[in-house]
């Protein structure tokens, strides 16, 4: 059975469980050691006391036995009195038995039934040559501490004194001390765990505050709000987190700068792709102007012709200027910034730029833009760059007299832009790679391989998504989804502005 999964997940619970188990084990072992040591001391002391009492009592007994041995007195009466008096004066005494050297009972207390001792057999008692103290449980139930004292002077044996003291009180003391120590251990362990619980609670509250701060951190806020000051390790953690926030912010700024440079480069690359169409668009008025100039030179005196041609030249220059203006408008590196963007307007702006490329290949462009489309919160320039990229790709993909369809519509809280071309399509084995940086199917020098990758990055940076579906030889559709923004007033204004 794998018990690892049973470990509590909370830091506080795990620490408390570990510390609790360890403390309990240590307290138990310490308590047991102390109790065993104390028990040995207590039992030893009780035995020593019992031996001392036996020895003291034996002095009178030996005197009486000497008198009896010398026929000076009848010892039985003396010994009986001694035993009774001694029993009466010591409430812990349970039995006294006096044996003569042959093993006959000379005197004994009346509180015991046979056998009057528990230490050993009569034969064993008579052979004991030094005091012996034993603790045992009597067959009747109570525990007794029995001292067997061989009474002798030199090698003269007077008999054996067996003195039994109740030992249940010893066990009672042990039991009381055990309960006392166990209670103490429980109180100490509980108190320690409670203290630990409170300290961990304080620590974890600080950690939770840090986590909340991490969860709610706003990298766009200037300056980054500082966490509360603390003097402990948590305070150090706060400080390091704040420093990390600042480093992340700095890195993010650097990244954004790099990203904008890449985007700008890609925009310039798109301009390059527009160049052939634009060159044609500019070349036509320039050729007309050149013809006009030839005609004027050939007939300088023809004033009416000159005036007519100058008008034509002006018209041609105005057209070329317009083309260049549009191009500059796209290429100009503007200040990036989020704001309400009407996707339809962006599509139309791009459409005007790629119109020359469409015309060159005689491509039919179908625009199906949904009226009243919600606005999106976006960087207008970046969104136009994405649309430009996708439309140029579509232009590149279709043959002469091809077909491209651009549609916008809203779906739930999304604004969707679809760019479909009936070009050669994308092979299934390449469709998962087309968003990879530097992946291109074009010839060297015709593409950077970054267009789709950057487009996907821009869309995702705006909280949207860019997906592609393709049927080779039939059609390819790129779909941009962007979250609709709540710019109710702006949308209305935008729509009103669209109206002629």
């Amino acid at each position, binding site marked *: 059975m794998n*018990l690892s*999964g*049973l470990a*509590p997940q909370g830091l506080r619970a795990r620490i408390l469980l570990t510390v609790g*188990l360890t403390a*309990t084990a240590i307290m*138990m072992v310490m308590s*047991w050691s102390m*109790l*065993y040591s104390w*028990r040995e001391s207590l*039992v030893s002391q009780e*035995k020593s006391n019992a031996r001392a009492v036996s020895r003291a009592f034996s*002095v009178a007994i*030996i*005197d009486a036995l*000497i*008198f009896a041995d*010398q026929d*000076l007195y009848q010892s039985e009466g003396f010994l009986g009195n001694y035993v009774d008096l001694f029993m009466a004066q010591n409430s812990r005494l349970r039995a006294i038995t006096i044996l003569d*050297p042959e093993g006959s009972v000379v005197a004994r207390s009346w509180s015991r039934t046979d056998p009057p001792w*528990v*230490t*050993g057999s009569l034969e*064993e008692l*008579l*052979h*004991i*040559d*030094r005091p*012996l*103290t*034993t*603790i*045992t*449980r009597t067959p009747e139930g109570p*525990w007794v501490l029995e001292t067997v004292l061989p009474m002798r*002077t*030199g*090698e*003269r*044996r007077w008999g054996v004194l067996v003195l039994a003291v109740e*030992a249940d009180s*010893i*066990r009672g003391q*042990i*039991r009381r001390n*055990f309960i006392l120590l*166990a209670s103490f251990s429980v109180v100490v362990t509980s108190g320690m765990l409670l203290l630990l619980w409170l300290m961990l609670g304080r620590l974890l509250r600080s950690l939770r505050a840090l986590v909340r701060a991490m969860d709610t951190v706003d990298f766009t806020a200037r300056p980054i709000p500082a966490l509360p000051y603390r003097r402990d390790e948590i305070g150090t953690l706060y400080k390091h987190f704040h420093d990390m926030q600042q480093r992340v912010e700095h890195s993010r700024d650097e990244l954004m700068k790099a990203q904008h440079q890449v985007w700008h480069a890609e925009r310039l690359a798109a301009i390059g792709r527009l160049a052939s169409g634009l060159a044609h668009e500019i070349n036509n008025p320039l050729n007309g102007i050149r013809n006009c100039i030839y005609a004027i030179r050939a007939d300088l005196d023809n004033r009416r012709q000159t005036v007519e041609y100058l008008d034509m030249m002006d018209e041609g220059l105005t057209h070329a200027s317009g083309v260049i203006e549009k191009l500059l408008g796209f290429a100009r590196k503007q200040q990036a910034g989020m704001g309400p963007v009407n996707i339809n307007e962006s599509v139309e702006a791009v459409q005007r730029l790629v119109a020359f490329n469409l015309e060159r290949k005689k491509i039919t462009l179908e625009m199906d833009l949904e009226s009243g489309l919600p606005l999106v919160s976006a960087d207008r320039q970046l969104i136009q760059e994405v649309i430009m990229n996708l439309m140029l790709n579509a232009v590149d993909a279709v043959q002469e007299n091809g077909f491209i369809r651009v549609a916008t519509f809203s779906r739930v809280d999304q604004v969707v832009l679809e760019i479909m071309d009936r070009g050669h399509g994308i092979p299934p084995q390449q469709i998962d790679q087309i968003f990879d940086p530097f992946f291109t199917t074009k010839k060297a020098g015709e593409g950077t391989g970054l267009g789709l990758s950057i487009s996907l990055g821009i869309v995702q940076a705006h909280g949207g998504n860019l997906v592609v579906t393709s049927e080779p030889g039939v059609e390819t559709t790129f779909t941009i989804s962007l979250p609709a923004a709540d710019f109710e007033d702006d949308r209305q204004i935008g729509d009103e502005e669209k109206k002629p």
Partner: protein
Amino acid sequence: MKRILLPILLVILVALVGVTNYLVLEDLTDISTNSTPLPTGPATGNDLSDRPLVRIGVVSRFAPNVIYAGYQPIMDYLNHEGTRRYELQLSTSYQDAVNRLRDGMVEASFLGAWIFGHLESDEDLLSIAAPLNENGRSEFHAVLVTREDSDLTSTSQLAGLKVALPSPQSWSGNWLQTNGLSDVGLSVADLDSIHHFDHHQTVVWQILRGNFDAGVVKESVAAEYRNEGLRTVAVSQAIPGPPLVGRRGVDPDILVEISTLLLALDPDQPADLRVLESWTHEFSFGFTAVDRRHYQDAFQAEGVNR
């Protein structure tokens, strides 16, 4: 599942702790200590029951248990080294000890020097041996003692004081009356009172408890209580040590065995020294042969008479 198992695991742990503690408590309260084999030795020492019994008497100068503590080791030695079974026989008085010897109730007896020296001519009693002192001579002294905080510094200051003495049939019980007082120009009449007690130790206790101003005991007894607040004021002249006396009607082999074994103890021999050192101070320097005339001469020469 984990939510159920974790509390179950905790309950099991708590139960485990409880059961373990219960078992420890049971073990702690099992204080029985009777598992070791009983120490054994001979039930009655050497089996002497088949040996002929020889009874040795002792004058009642000490309490019975003190007499046994002092004289039983000598019996043990005789039992070990001899061929007979020697046992002590107590007496109720000095005279009772003499009577028991004369009446054949004992074969020999440790008598007092005074009573032995003052016995009427009795050719049936034979002195066997007497203990030596630390100087290797068989002589001892009676000493006048008082409490350490007493002003008494000499026998001449005893006038008007209460004096405790041991048996009137002992040298210690007679020295003051016969020699001690007269030597300093006093007589018994000058004292407040004299009281005789059965045992030397009783005399010491009476003085230490303040019931008597001074007393006389054997010097060996006074030495035992030197550290208990007893101070020696005066020392008697030396008299022969207390003799072990036999009776002529006794099997001579018995007296010879006793005499031979006791006189054979030589403190200069390590084995004998070990034996002697285990005896009471009075007998720890060995024995010497003595003659009854020494006692008679000693008391007559010193002018000591009944």
